[in-house]
């Protein structure tokens, strides 16, 4: 099977499978079963009526937002989420972004809309780290109400997955929510429109610019157990891999790029076998014992 088709199939199955609570039109509520104790590896709003899993970014912010409420006990700092995401990151780096994230899949589909396409100004990629530290970690910890409770600020201000998968369906099945729409909703709606417009014109715009989950996974791209392998001897510098990459990585000169989502489109685009998917050894290979060749006797020249 074609690799792109296989990836599309995986993305479709994961997106539909993890949002497969089909009873919500009848219960008019979100799924509340035991699977909600498990986080999705990608960005998938847990307020989505069909969502079977929790959103790791939303859950982590809620842990930090409630940290002052656990006075007396051991504070819940979200180690369960960080451990889970870090474990995935060390194993496979940003593979979840390329293969498992439902919002990444939606971006791939939106980018297929035939319009003029634009490139991404590369320094902007650092914004996602600001979002991770500022909105996901610091703001929920530091901005608290009188009771000491924080808010999930990334969800509240920005998250387009929440607007698309959570807000829109819930506003349809729960019309009473319309009465509470105010500044926060319209702010999120504004960002949503802006991000969707960006996604249509720039490949993986949200992942590259704002996604805190992608920013977290990207920290492990240089040490993860899987990697994109570049075989220099096979490369003819035809640059076929450059337009194929959805995140604008130049695979022939950027080794282990933090932007690489390991979608393997470049591997497919390369006709010379210069790029491949491979495993990185976690530990040095065992030394082979090689019989040392007998050195020829040194010629000693006698001083005359």
């Amino acid at each position, binding site marked *: 099977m074609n690799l792109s088709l296989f990836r599309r199939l995986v993305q479709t199955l994961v997106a539909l499978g993890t949002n497969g609570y089909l009873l919500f039109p009848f219960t008019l509520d979100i799924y509340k079963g035991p699977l909600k104790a498990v986080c999705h590896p990608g960005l998938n709003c847990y*307020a989505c009526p069909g969502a079977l899993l929790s959103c790791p970014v939303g859950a982590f912010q809620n842990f930090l937002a409630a940290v002052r409420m656990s006075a007396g006990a051991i504070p819940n700092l979200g180690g369960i989420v960080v451990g889970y995401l870090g474990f995935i990151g060390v194993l496979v780096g940003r593979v979840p972004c390329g293969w498992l994230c439902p919002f990444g899949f939606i971006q791939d589909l939106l980018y297929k809309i035939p319009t003029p396409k634009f490139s991404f100004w590369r320094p902007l990629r650092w914004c996602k780290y600001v979002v991770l530290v500022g909105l996901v970690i610091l703001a929920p910890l530091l901005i608290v109400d009188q009771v000491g409770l924080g808010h999930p600020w990334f969800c509240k201000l920005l998250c387009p997955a929440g607007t698309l998968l959570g807000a829109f369906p819930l506003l349809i099945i729960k019309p009473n929510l319309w009465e509470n729409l105010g500044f926060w909703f319209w702010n999120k709606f504004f960002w949503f429109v802006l991000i969707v417009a960006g996604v249509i014109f720039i490949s993986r715009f949200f992942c590259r610019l704002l996604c805190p989950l992608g920013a977290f996974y990207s920290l492990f791209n240089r040490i993860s157990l899987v990697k994109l392998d570049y075989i220099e001897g096979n490369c003819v510098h035809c640059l076929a891999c450059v337009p194929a990459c959805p995140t604008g990585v130049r695979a022939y000169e950027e080794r282990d790029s933090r932007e690489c989502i390991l979608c393997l489109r470049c591997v497919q685009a390369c006709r010379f076998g210069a790029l491949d998917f491979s495993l990185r050894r976690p530990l040095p290979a065992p030394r082979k014992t090689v019989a040392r060749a007998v050195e020829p006797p040194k010629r000693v020249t006698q001083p005359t």
Partner: protein
Amino acid sequence: MRNPWAIGLIIFFSLLFLIGVNIGELDFLYNVGRTICLSCIGVG
């Protein structure tokens, strides 16, 4: 390229996860997940 950090980090994150489970974070996660996130919708 070899990567001596990977094994250490895998152990570290596994421990972090297990500590989280043991101090009751699983229940917290479950409760968060089954509550409608008003912030996500933009109404709270």
